[in-house]
């Protein structure tokens, strides 16, 4: 029972972490909180359902196309909605909030209120550590999440684009003096942030089907992960995601499923009480 809850927690936690990385990136570079983050996650889930289930494309190819499309849509949203609000964070907050509602209505209109589920990538179950049988699809989701997160961190560390992101997150003006076109960096970061939400969406959708409004708790959880890990810390928000995932599942197993969000906020309050800057917080006020 314990091992099973822990594994469930890890699977969910990795997906939370992936979603939260996108939020953290966009907050760190642009100082924008994207309230529609969860809807990009859901949209990618719908896309992969559409391509794989309805059009019959191979599930993995469908996932890649879905993430790519959401990335492009992210670019369009940044260019048309976010860019005009530079310098006034309140406007982007309101705009993305409206955007999330527009998305939810469109989802409802196009896909209906019912859960939609892209096909699984693999079938069957595996015996884990000789303790319990666990769905292969969930194990694959865990592995895929780990791989995407590892790729993201390798990108941050090893590529020019990653260095641009780290430099601009620390000192935007200085980065600009070093030759970074921060307007273009904003565009790409926002797109990449949406793509990370999309990656989480396509990875988890075969396990937890998407519905028009399921994006709200996804975004909420991601925001909590970012605050938990410490604003501006990428590794912190991964840890935040894992902690949330595990605690939520332990709580569901030993207390009650209904209190999922209560556990989340309990942890948040406890961490903020004892470490106001978050688990990995390093940004001075």
């Amino acid at each position: 029972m314990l091992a099973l809850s822990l594994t469930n927690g890890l699977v969910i936690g990795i997906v939370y972490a992936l979603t939260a990385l996108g939020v953290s990136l966009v907050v760190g570079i642009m100082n924008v909180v994207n309230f529609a983050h969860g809807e990009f996650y859901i949209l990618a889930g719908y896309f992969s359902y559409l391509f794989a289930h309805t059009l019959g494309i191979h599930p993995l190819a469908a996932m890649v196309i879905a993430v790519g499309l959401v990335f492009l849509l992210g670019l369009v949203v940044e260019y048309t909605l976010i860019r005009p609000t530079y310098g006034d964070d309140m406007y982007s907050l309101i705009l993305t909030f409206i955007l999330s509602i527009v998305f939810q209505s469109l989802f409802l209109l196009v896909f209906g209120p019912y859960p939609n589920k892209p096909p699984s990538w693999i079938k069957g179950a595996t015996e884990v550590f000789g303790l319990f049988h666990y769905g292969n699809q969930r194990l694959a989701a865990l592995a895929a999440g780990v791989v995407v997160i590892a790729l993201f961190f390798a990108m941050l560390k090893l590529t020019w684009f990653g260095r641009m992101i780290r430099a601009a997150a620390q000192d935007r003006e200085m980065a600009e003096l070093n030759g970074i076109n921060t307007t273009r960096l904003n565009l790409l970061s926002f797109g990449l942030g949406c793509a990370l939400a999309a990656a989480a969406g396509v990875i988890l959708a075969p396990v937890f089907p998407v519905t028009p409004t399921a994006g709200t708790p996804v975004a909420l959880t991601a925001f909590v992960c970012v605050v938990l890990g410490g604003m501006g810390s990428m590794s912190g928000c991964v840890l935040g995601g894992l902690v949330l995932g595990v605690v939520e599942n332990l709580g569901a197993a030993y207390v009650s499923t209904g209190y999922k969000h209560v556990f989340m906020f309990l942890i948040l309050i406890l961490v903020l009480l004892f470490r106001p800057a978050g688990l990995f917080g390093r940004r001075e006020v």
Partner: protein
Amino acid sequence: MFKIENLDVFRGETQVLWGVGLEVAPGERVAILGSNGAGKSSLMAAITGLLRPRRGNIIFNDRALVGLKPYQITQLGIALVPEGRRVYKGMSVRENLEMGAFVRRGRPRLKESIERVFGLFPILGQRSAQGAGTLSGGEQQMLAIGRALMSLPDLLLIDELSLGLAPRVTKEIYAALASLGSEITVILVEQNVELALRHSERAYIVESGRVTGHGVSTELIDDPDIRRAYLGM
């Protein structure tokens, strides 16, 4: 090579520079003197594109800079060592230097530029893998200068080189700068007037946002008014 004409700069609604003009010849070292709040850093911000002047011209190698973005100005060959150094504390010494070579003009020669900076400031070579946040103030200033040099600038702007540094470290950094010779033109902002005059050929004096005087550094050092106003004697 570099010329500013009649520059008016605002920060928000407050005017901080009034009709500033100056001229720098290739290979020259020019000091900008002035007390705290005179507008020296604002002038650096206007040159590098961080502040957009309301009036006036900035001409660099026959190109007008007003209206260009900071990244475009860096690409044209101007590099700033900002007040307070502003190294990327969460990145290693080497990564900081690499960021300096981010612009197109710096990137092809990244490896040899790093070796050159390590030759100039050997301590940076020894600490290349260390986080920049673990460096002392003097080492951070060396890193900030090294980072600026990585873009292979024609014009190097240094804002408050000696601020908060021990005299020994300041001397070491000035010696390193002197070893660059006249291949690079330097505009030096200093509150320490004596240091500035000793390490420059000419100087401009900025007071309350206006240029109130300029001259040859060796003459200014002996000027009784300057000595009274800035050297406290």
